[in-house]
């Protein structure tokens, strides 16, 4: 577990978000520090994905404040693409680019955004593939990979932009059980390297192991927040007690 620095990486206050009439996030406030690993838990439909997607503005929100790396995400004048370069995101369903092979999936953004020339980007991509244990898959297309391999490629792809922050939305939920471990291992390694991460997950054991902090969401609110031990083993709110009784 890494030492928490005092730098606030992500500041969220009174975040409110609706889809039409449906108010999904009602009043969310929290600060996430540099190097911190935060796991978000909660029942399906509680707004976890929506919260995560507000952090890189894949979803626009109605009111409240989200400040990432000093950028006010509600401000229409910021260059959102520049801000996103620094925030990697990993999706439940991988979302690898189906038209590109693994190497090109990794090289697309760095080359297209002129973060690196082709040679450098390729070297870095190969290094990232090595890191996630998939050096032999550089030429494979997404449809030729298993779920666990796809997700490791997706993580490597995000890392190729050298982000400061990584967001994970249920990275192992779409995987067969035997492939969960290989993906968690990569995330564990990132935690050890001090990456700031926000992870939506149902892997309770993993949450207890890597997270500095756990957040339990329900009905558009943060219901419990604290160390994983506190939140998972000794929840105080009835909704949280009920949830952890069911999943533990």
């Amino acid at each position, binding site marked *: 577990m890494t030492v928490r620095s005092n730098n606030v990486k992500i500041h969220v206050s009174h975040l409110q978000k609706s889809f039409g009439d449906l108010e999904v996030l009602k009043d969310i406030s929290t600060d996430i520090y540099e190097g911190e690993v935060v796991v978000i838990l909660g029942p399906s439909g509680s707004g976890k994905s929506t919260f995560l997607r507000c952090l*890189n503005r*894949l979803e626009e929100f109605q009111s409240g404040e989200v400040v990432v790396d000093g950028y006010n995400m509600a401000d229409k004048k910021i260059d959102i*693409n*520049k801000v*996103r*370069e620094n*925030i*990697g*995101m990993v*999706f439940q*369903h991988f*979302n*690898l*680019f*189906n*038209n*590109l092979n693994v190497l090109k999936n990794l090289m*697309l*953004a760095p080359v*297209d*955004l002129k973060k690196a020339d082709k040679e450098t980007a390729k070297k870095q991509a190969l290094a990232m593939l090595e890191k996630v244990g998939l050096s032999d898959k550089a030429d494979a*297309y997404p*449809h*030729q990979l298993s779920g666990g391999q796809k997700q490791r490629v*997706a993580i490597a*792809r*995000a890392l190729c*932009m050298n982000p400061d922050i990584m967001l994970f939305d249920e990275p192992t939920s779409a995987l067969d059980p035997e492939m969960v471990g290989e993906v968690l291992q990569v995330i564990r390694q990132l935690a050890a390297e001090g990456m700031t991460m926000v992870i939506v997950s149902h892997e309770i054991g993993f949450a207890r192991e890597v997270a500095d902090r756990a957040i339990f969401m329900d009905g558009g609110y943060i219901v419990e927040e604290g160390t994983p031990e506190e939140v998972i083993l000794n929840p105080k709110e009835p909704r949280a007690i009920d949830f952890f009784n069911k999943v533990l």
Partner: protein
Amino acid sequence: MINILTVYGQLLIKALGQTLLLALLGLFFACILGIIFGIMSVLKSKVCRVIQQVFVDIIRGVPMIVLAFFIYFGVPYAFNNLLGVRMVLTALQAGTIALALNCGAYMSEIIRAGIQSVDVGQMEAARSLGLSYWRSMYRVVMPQAIRTMIPTIINQFIITLKDTSILSVIGFPELVNTAKTVVANTMDSFSVWAIVGVMYLIVITTLSKVAKALERRLSYDRKK
């Protein structure tokens, strides 16, 4: 029949050339219209989407023969008599416009469906890496959309090629129009129409074969 081929063969080949010219011109502008309106139909802007929808509804609701008459006779009439501006359209110009509008509307629908068939996660992943909407469209979404669109687009090309025959009504010397003259001269409608039918058949079958080959070459999840 041999007789007709020797005497009128060259004329018919030339007419086929005119048919192909008209089809190519029409398709070229149809592609441009199709891409513009197709992209408009997937934008966030409601105005853009409504404009595309109205365009498609109009083209769907009006037979092409009416559209052709309207463009060839109606539009110049309006310019000359109502606006007082001299304007003439050649049959080729009017035919190209009619084909382009007609095929363009259907192409825009094909392109819309193709783009929408690509999982939104592809766009989101590209955006999350910092690519702009248009770069994501260009590098990730369109390449995948085009692959699914190709069979339908080729099919639309074939329909458009056949639709050129409708433009015989505005006097453009394409295959059907020319064939009519040949029939009038020879009185052998059986042979003439048989020959013309075979000519269309050869061109269109070749096009279909090329399409199949192209489709196979472009697919990335079937081979390898």
